[in-house]
């Protein structure tokens, strides 16, 4: 039995502890906002927060999250910070096909939680593990800067 906190709620699950957190989120909990892109840690589409730190859920056996807190895009969606990020992504045209977007948004939260006033280089470093094949990144970088500016106070 593996017990952890998922999007603020205590959950338990009886399963193979080596299953990927990604599969458990999508299949057992129906949280399909977390995407599988490459399945080998290169693309960040499956990124979630584990105790506030960004991790790739495709590389994380669920047995290693026992006793810890997992935040997915579905849980983050309920927060004022999410609204600031989502508005900035929409305003800057930072979403096209959308597959990378949940991971990009979780990476944005991980970055702004540590650095509420990031430089352009900080943003590119914070998102360096997240691939986007549509936007060419500049709109996403601008969206993160906009979220930091418009959401001033949310991450302090």
């Amino acid at each position, binding site marked *: 039995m593996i017990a952890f906190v998922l999007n603020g709620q205590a959950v338990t699950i009886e399963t193979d502890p*080596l299953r990927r957190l990604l*599969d458990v989120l999508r299949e057992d909990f129906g949280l399909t906002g977390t995407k599988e892109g490459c*399945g080998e840690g290169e693309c960040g589409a499956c990124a979630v927060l584990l105790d506030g730190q960004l991790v*790739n859920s495709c*590389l994380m*056996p669920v047995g*290693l999250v026992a006793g810890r807190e997992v935040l997915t895009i579905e849980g983050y969606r309920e927060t004022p910070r999410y609204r600031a990020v989502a508005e900035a992504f929409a305003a800057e045209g930072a979403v096209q096909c959308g597959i990378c977007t949940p991971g990009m948004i979780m990476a944005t939260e991980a970055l702004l939680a540590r650095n509420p006033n990031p430089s352009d280089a900080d943003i590119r*470093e914070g998102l360096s593990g997240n691939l986007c094949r549509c936007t060419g990144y500049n709109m996403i970088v601008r969206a993160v800067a906009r979220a930091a500016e418009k959401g001033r106070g949310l991450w302090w």
Partner: protein
Amino acid sequence: MVVTAYRPATLAEALRIRAAERAIPMAGGTDLMVKHRRHAGLAPKFERPILFLGHLDELRYVRRHEEGELPGLEIGAATTLTDLLMAAETPAALRQAIAEMAAPAIRNAATLAGNVCNASPAGDTLPALYCFDAQVVLARSGGERRLDIARFIRGPGQTDLGDDELVRAVVLPLVPFDRMLYRKVGTRRANALSKLSFLGLARLDGDIVRDMRCAFGAVAPTVVRCRALEARCINLPRQALAAQRADLLAGYAELIVPIRDQRSSAEYRRAVALRLLSQFLSDL
């Protein structure tokens, strides 16, 4: 359900399980989960049970100690690369290598000990660990031993880790340096495996080279470091290094025996490795 993984509560329990089950140690899982992955939706498949270690707080620390001639650093086996980036004591050369490794999400899970045990010729923390004469602390129930990193890593993916042993920590003396050139050559800034890497470190006393160490990653089955060639530079005035340069390049050229693979050609690796060495020597 078949037991596929153990989650010990302490290192002592982990060592007992390791000895009894020959279980595969897993800290962050960032290499093992990729190596053993199957189709989407399926758990990765391992030949033996897994022994989780990443959750053990007793193995997650960076500690400075003052025994010996130089202060040293002890890095617990569950310490992540992010922990090391944040720790004030981490030597600059190791910090820079980590800053250029992978991306935040992987550094948040991956450990230094895991990079050592993976024993890849392209392991990016290894040149720094070789230059600092790091040692690996190997624990088993009832005892432990220390091994120089260059003895612990025997070849690609091959280490001296015993069936009943776990890496408990990596230790290194905090050798002072005031010159450094580190260069990782990869296809992309983030998440790229190295085509090759180079680390040069030196300490000068006025114009005299008091210490000089070079390590090359991904140009041979294990990291290349050569004390005999380094010794030729030590206690020379730096102007005299120019006269030594051709000899040094020729000496290292014999040790640089890269392979060709999907990441790079042998010729490219050799040429760039020697140019980086040459640049380091001329910048001293």
